[in-house]
């Protein structure tokens, strides 16, 4: 029987090599040599910042601190820790005025809508800063988030390229430890920071350690739901996770185009992004 506790350990040094090559090469092929990252003080953006600094050189990376008035001082400090440890350039641009101006117009909006507005405002600032700095926006979404759709479409999910999208959160932590991300950031509870007291695991209703093991079996090992139950996972948990994966497929795709002609972008007009480079 397949183990309920498969090892998610990766060859961290090899991953570091591939991901730094990826950032340097794929940014270079677009004619750029610089990257911009929204650094939240959390683990994912910390790792992305460390990888980018190594790949591009610290002078070629701009870290953005984009606090809202409810952002905790801790998260700003942790972002500062990442900036100091990597030596990258940085700028702090509060989104409070912009967000509040918009939120005043939609006072009835709930926590989710408000959170999405903050995430999308940060995207606007990141893309604007990337134009000014002359670099590409580097994504920080990990495989767990991508599969569960735990992300704001066109918000934190927006980027020019994403070095972390094939690493589960557990593996992000392993690689971050390997690459020297400071302990304070490794130790804190993961949070999107969109409202006070929010934690990922509280909002999702399960831990990353649990869900990563299940996702690994379902996605990477292609076990059936029944086989995952036989491997020790509760059926309700398996069903819930499967439904999240299915329901959020749209977040992992370009919007579908209705086919009319013989040749349609996305169906039969197919080119790699690296076309001609």
């Amino acid at each position, binding site marked *: 029987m397949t183990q309920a506790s498969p090892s998610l350990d990766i060859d961290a040094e*090899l991953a570091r090599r591939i991901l730094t090559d990826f950032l340097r090469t794929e940014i270079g092929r677009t004619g750029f040599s610089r990257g911009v990252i929204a650094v939240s003080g959390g683990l994912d953006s910390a790792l992305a910042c460390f990888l980018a600094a190594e790949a591009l050189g610290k002078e070629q990376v701009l870290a953005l601190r984009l606090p809202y008035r409810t952002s905790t001082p801790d998260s700003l400090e942790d972002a500062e820790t990442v900036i100091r440890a990597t030596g990258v350039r940085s700028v702090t641009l509060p989104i409070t005025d912009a967000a509040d101006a918009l939120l005043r117009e939609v006072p009835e909006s709930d926590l989710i809508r408000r959170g999405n507005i903050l995430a999308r405002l940060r995207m606007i600032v990141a893309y604007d800063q990337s134009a000014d700095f002359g670099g590409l926006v580097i994504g920080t979404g990990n495989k767990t988030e991508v599969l569960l759709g735990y992300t704001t479409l066109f918000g934190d999910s927006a980027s020019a390229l994403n070095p972390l999208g094939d690493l589960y959160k557990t593996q992000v932590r392993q690689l971050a430890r390997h690459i020297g991300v400071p302990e304070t950031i490794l130790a804190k509870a993961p949070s999107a920071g969109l409202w006070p007291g929010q934690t990922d695991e509280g909002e999702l209703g399960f831990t990353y350690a649990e869900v990563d093991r299940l996702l690994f079996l379902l996605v990477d090992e292609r076990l059936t739901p029944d086989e995952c139950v036989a491997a020790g996972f509760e059926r309700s948990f398996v069903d819930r996770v499967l439904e999240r994966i299915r329901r959020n497929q749209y977040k992992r795709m370009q919007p579908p185009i209705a086919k009319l002609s013989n040749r349609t972008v996305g169906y039969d007009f197919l080119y790699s992004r690296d076309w*001609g480079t």
Partner: protein
Amino acid sequence: MSTFVAALAQINTKLGDVPANLDKHLALAAEARTRGADLIVFPELSLTGYMLQDLAPSVALRPTPQDDTLRRLLEASRALDLVVGFVERDEAHRLYISSAYLSRGDIVHIHRKLYLPTYGLFQDGRFFGVGTTARAFPTRFGRMGLLICEDFWHVSPPYVLWLDGAEILLCASASPGRGMQGEAGLESARWVESVGQAYARLFSVFVAQTNRVGLEDGLTFWGGASLHAPDGRCLAQAPYFEEALTLAEIDLSEVSRLRTRLPLLRDERPDLILRELDRLRQAGGS
């Protein structure tokens, strides 16, 4: 000639830019010759890059001496033999993933990829036609067989080339790195290396495999070209992820000596295999 020097050219390519890739081929062929190589082997689709998709028709060439790209490579083959990878267009405008063996100004052999993977990240079968022959061919060094990437993951093409008298198997790959759980290194690299070594031993042949490096979108090609002797010894191992030109001497007398001591080819029974395959085919199982 029982001894010659093979160069494994582990290169990065520009996707869809044949002139740029051709220049790199010519420069490396000249360098390999200067360093004493008699043969240089380039990876799969070395003139075009791998994830071509709809670029395939626009980079395809007809392998005739009239083709400008091929003409320059044929000129280079007067100094040393070349194996180059390209998109082949046949007379009926069908496209294939092909590799050509060029020597002394002539096209000695063209191999069309036999197995076009469409599983996982692969899309070969969507854009290309399948090759229909697996033939060994004589060269000025010895009898060789040429395979392209997925061909090598199936045991049947190397087996047929062995029976057809190949003493050297050349495998040209564009293998994207994948699989990182558990053991150190890439699963795809371990697989190719262990299979190459196994074929060398099973078929008492030299196995030279050249894989490309560089990235295409999110795919990283891992390099790691290698040469295995008929007894399974690793004679050359190129680095991972970096461009490299790796030279190694091949002494074909090793093949005759090993096949005398271990006459697996002599004792092989293709008639038995054929009978059993025929039985399976008639039973509808194959």
